[in-house]
């Protein structure tokens, strides 16, 4: 997109505030306090989810954030029959494999479209880009019929196949391969590397930040994906975490402490990953958001 050119913050600018240094005055203090309050409100739903997952059933009705007698009983109960464990593993496998596939194929296609001159290049580029305009929801019915025909219902492949490559990722990687100088590639060619080796050993290492950004988006997207896994699976052992949680919530009815525990189980992993790689992830989100 054209406007991408206008916004190109160096990735470092987001890591710390570059607001002018000035002595704290009343206005700044009030501004800070209000923003802090807003931030606390923002994390409240997450905080209440965690807090309630640690409460005994009789305490759920209290609005206190800190449980009076914290307990891991809910986790023991929810994890006992192994269903959440299975859903967790399913989600992990599916999100990981899809991420790997996107990293390989999106970058390979992006690289080819960026660095090769061949007949059909422009048509392929436009064709892939145009799929960005087709909403997933329009494709779920044909995908379902396809899965039914080929026996892909209730399988990892059935859940994964629609997302193995994305136009978004391809476009993102193409943008980043533009920054790899053609001279590097020429030099590698003269050194006798074949094109596959050049892509893998010369070009890929130079776009690592972009690959990381893509990986974050694809993984998070597949970890939280709901509508397609809901459609393509109907046996509980093939559910992903979101689909499993949805059915569990219905079944647990009003046992909110158990539902919150299930919600916590599906949220905690991404929260932990975020807290560890915070700066890195925010930078990736900005990069993907602005360039993609």
């Amino acid at each position: 997109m054209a406007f991408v050119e206008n916004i190109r913050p160096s990735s470092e600018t987001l890591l710390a505030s570059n607001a002018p240094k000035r002595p704290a005055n009343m206005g700044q203090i009030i501004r800070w306090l209000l923003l802090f309050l807003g931030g606390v409100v923002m994390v409240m739903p997450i905080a209440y989810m965690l807090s309630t997952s640690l409460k005994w059933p009789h305490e759920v009705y209290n609005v206190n954030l800190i449980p009076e007698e914290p307990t891991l009983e809910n986790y023991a109960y929810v994890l006992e029959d192994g269903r959440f464990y299975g859903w967790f593993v399913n989600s992990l496998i599916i999100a990981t494999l899809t991420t790997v596939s996107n990293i390989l194929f999106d970058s390979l296609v992006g690289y080819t479209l960026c660095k090769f001159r061949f007949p059909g290049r422009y048509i392929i580029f436009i064709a892939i880009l145009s799929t960005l305009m087709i909403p997933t929801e329009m494709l779920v019915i044909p995908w379902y019929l396809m899965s039914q025909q080929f026996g892909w219902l209730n399988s990892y492949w059935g859940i994964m196949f629609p997302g193995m490559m994305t136009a978004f990722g391809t476009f993102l990687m193409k943008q980043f391969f533009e920054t790899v100088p053609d001279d590097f590639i020429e030099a590698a060619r003269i050194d006798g590397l074949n094109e596959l080796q050049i892509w893998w050993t010369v070009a890929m290492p130079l776009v690592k930040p972009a690959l990381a950004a893509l990986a974050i988006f694809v993984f998070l997207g597949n970890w939280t994906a709901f509508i397609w896994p809901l459609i393509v699976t109907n046996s509980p052992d093939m559910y992903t975490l979101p689909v499993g949680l949805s059915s569990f919530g219905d079944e647990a009815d009003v046992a909110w402490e158990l539902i919150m525990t299930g919600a916590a189980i599906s949220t905690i992993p991404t929260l932990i990953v975020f807290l560890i790689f915070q700066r890195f992830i925010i930078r990736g989100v900005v990069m993907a958001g602005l360039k993609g």
Partner: protein
Amino acid sequence: MYRNLTIKQKQIVWAWAFLAIPVLFYGVIRFYPTGNAILISFQNWNLLGTRSWAGFDNYVKLWNDPVFWKVFANTFIYLLLGTPISLVISFVIAYHLDQLRFMHGFLRMLYFLPFMTSAVAMAWVWRWFYQPVPTGLFNNLLASVGIGQISFLNSTTNALPAVLAPAVWAGLGFQIIIFMAGLRAIPKSYYEAAKIDGVGWWTVLWEITLPLLKPTIVFIVVFSSIGFLRIFDHVFNMTTNNPGGPLNATKPLVLMIYDTAFTGFDMGYAAAQTVVLFVVLLTVSLLQLRILRDK
């Protein structure tokens, strides 16, 4: 054979070798299903029975279906409430956050955290918040300060905003981060010049910051609009006992598609709805790009 090719020809061979699997993928998993969805929309087909040509029957049926118009209106209410509200809130927060140094990263983290959660999990959390006393958090808080109870998810008027709230909440973090990147990209010299001229902050905001932020605003508007027009996860999970209820008050287009296709197995009718969704998304995005860019 390969050895005798010129460098240029070798490149063509490599390029197509690299593209073979992806081209197959996009053909079979993207383009064929798109055509297929349009084709099915002109057919009568419940999954088990026969498949017959229906002409425009599905579209006529849709036009005459009062539920469709209700759903169509809901979808646009999600858009018309969700996009401006999240745009304004995220800009105000980003604008002020940008001007703070103290614990900047910590504050930013608080706002960004919800973006990392799963919509399904958070829909259930908010669903609990909305329950009547003695369970729900909001009504318990209201009760503790002595205000009357509010019926959220069971009310035909309150349910839609109640379902929308977590969707707005979850998207704010992303928009704030994008806005902050946009703000950082505005050259400092503009602000310095304004300062020398003694221009007030309000004028600076409207004459410098917002106009220069336009590309960012366009991006966020288009991006979040597409999200709100396709809302599904939150609605489905907050109303599992009666999807899209009460009385279709929260039902968006995608949920109607899901119901028609995978509860009613009326594939032709559902496919027609997906075509409508496609046209709506395309029209709204193009209109927004046009209006926002030309000004």
